[in-house]
């Protein structure tokens, strides 16, 4: 095996590219760029959309590790023991604990004139939070779409998740009740068990995390007094770890100490709703399918470009063979041209992707109703797609070149 045909192929390819029509070259490179972006970005947006939801779930709700009460228990047993251990671990960076109770908010009772008039109500989990700690953990104070966040000394004030208001979640089904007229500044009745309290809606939270947007928030000490809780056992503890710490490591410490007997201890991945994982996988599959269509289009484009190029140069291909140039050298020249188009096209694509698109979308996430979408791309994933695109173009360029080069030399020279 000699390198001479490769050398000659390269020699010919460079000179052909140099003298090719500028507009044709730009057009082909553009097609390759779009194909590359199609291959990477559609998948990246679809996966990024879910990745946005996953990240939000982690940053705003679970933390790296979430500890909650066992289903059959009213609270996390031995909360103070768990907190002691966590506070003593150097890997732990932040904690936020919550008390939870089921309840409903009711509004419209003031305008009710007859007993038969119906008031509107919405049910949800009422979370008693430490406003400062919770805000440090999730930045929830910045997620207010109306009104303002809770202060530690707020008395008889609540925040509502956006899903509890028809205004923000316009769904009206028998199964889901929400408030249609109440808003920030309204007085509503809070029913927890047999206790009822009149409270003021101070603000509306929209986090795009389903669990949070269905909650009612109030200051923890108040919730405790309403439900008559005099111990300090929590229902939820979200734990944020120092960067690089494996959540499993901390979980295992807690498990070793036997705390899993009285509480559910989950890493953020374990706590992730299964549908998120399923949708992420489905979207990735969908993205790859759409990308594959683009790949087929690109390979057909390259095939046609090389085919037309080779057929219009049939005479010269004949002359090359006639004066003794190896067929393989001529085929290599077309392979090099295909590689040139593929590399320059994807090169532009990579520049655009990492130089503009990814940083831009990271800074300005796409505002999907249920998540702040980013473009999820990995270097490995991008490299694989570049390689796939390259291989496809090489094959798509080689086949037509081979078809034309194989034709009879003399017929080609004489153009018959």
């Amino acid at each position, binding site marked *: 095996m000699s390198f001479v045909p490769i050398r*000659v192929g390269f020699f010919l390819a460079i000179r052909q590219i140099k003298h090719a029509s500028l507009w044709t070259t730009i057009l082909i490179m553009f097609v390759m760029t779009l194909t590359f972006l199609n291959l990477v970005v559609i998948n990246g947006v679809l996966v990024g959309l879910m990745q946005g939801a996953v990240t939000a779930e982690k940053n705003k709700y679970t933390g790296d590790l979430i500890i909650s009460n066992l289903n059959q228990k009213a609270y996390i047993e031995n909360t103070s023991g768990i907190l002691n251990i966590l506070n003593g671990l150097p890997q732990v960076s932040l904690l936020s604990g919550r008390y939870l109770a089921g309840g409903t908010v009711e509004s419209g009772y003031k305008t009710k004139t007859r007993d038969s008039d119906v008031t509107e109500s919405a049910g949800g989990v009422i979370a008693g939070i430490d406003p400062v700690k919770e805000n440090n953990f999730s930045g929830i104070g910045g997620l207010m779409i109306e009104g303002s966040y809770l202060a530690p000394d707020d008395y008889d004030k609540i925040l509502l998740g956006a899903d509890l208001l028809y205004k923000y979640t316009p769904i009206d089904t028998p199964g889901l009740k929400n408030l249609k007229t109440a808003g920030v500044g309204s007085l509503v009745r809070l029913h927890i068990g047999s206790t009822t309290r009149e409270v003021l809606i101070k603000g509306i939270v929209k986090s795009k995390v389903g669990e949070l947007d269905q909650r009612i928030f109030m200051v923890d000490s108040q919730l405790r007094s309403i439900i008559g809780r005099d111990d300090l056992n929590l229902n939820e503890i979200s734990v944020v770890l120092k960067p690089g710490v494996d959540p499993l490591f901390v979980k295992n410490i807690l498990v070793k100490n036997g705390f899993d007997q009285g509480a559910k201890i989950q890493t953020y991945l374990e706590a992730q709703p299964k549908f998120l994982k399923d949708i992420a996988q489905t979207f990735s599959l969908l993205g790859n399918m759409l990308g594959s269509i683009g790949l087929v289009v690109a390979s057909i484009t390259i095939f046609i470009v090389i085919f037309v190029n080779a057929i219009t140069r049939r005479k010269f291909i004949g002359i090359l063979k006639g004066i003794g140039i190896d067929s393989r050298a001529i085929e290599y020249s077309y392979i090099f041209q295909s590689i040139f188009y593929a590399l320059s096209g994807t090169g532009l694509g990579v520049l655009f992707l990492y130089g503009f698109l990814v940083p831009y979308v990271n800074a300005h996430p796409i505002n999907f109703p249920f998540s702040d979408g980013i473009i999820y791309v990995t270097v490995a994933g991008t490299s694989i797609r570049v390689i796939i695109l390259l291989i496809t173009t090489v094959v798509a360029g080689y086949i037509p070149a081979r078809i034309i080069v194989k034709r009879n030399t003399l017929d080609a020279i004489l153009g018959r």
Partner: protein
Amino acid sequence: MIEIKNLIKTYHDGKVETPVLKDINFSIEDGEFVAIMGRSGAGKSTLLYQISLLDHPSSGDIIIDGVNATDLSSDDRTKYRLHKLGYVFQDYALLPDLTALENVALPLIMQGKTTEHAYSVAKKALDRVNLGHRPGNLPSQLSGGEQQRVSVARAIAHKPKILFADEPTANLDTESSRVVIDLFKELHKEGQTIIMVTHEEEYGKMTERTIRLSDGKVVEDRKNR
């Protein structure tokens, strides 16, 4: 020495058979300058393509220096053309994307020569055809006569055993034609074997020997002068 024995070429087009070369026999010594002549359609080009290994005869043998070229594989024929044969076509047949120098150097690079060596040999060949001053011109930037001289330079740069030319002057004016024919005469004086197809009696006479074809047969084979 080139020996042509019982050479037959018949074209088949479906059921139609067109016999073009009908039992051609002759031999050419090394260093001869031969003109193949005859009326249009006599089969001159067809004969040249067979001898120059661009085409396969229907039957018969072409023996060059004892090697029967009809037995060679396609790859070996390509290599043979690259190393031993040179071609000048009527329409120059230069590659439009390559400069004059690159056109001449390409077969040398294909032979495995380094680029510098190929370029220096190609430069000498261009000097030989009086085009040493325009190595960087593309074919489109040269006149017809200049292009044909580049084509001659490409055909002789690798010092081929046989130089083939099919109507090398047909597209040229009288002056350019003279330049090309004079070049051939000089090359012949230096010992180059040349087989040239032409229908111009004037140029035919300038060769050593004329083989005249008519209807696919050799009707005359004589030494000139």
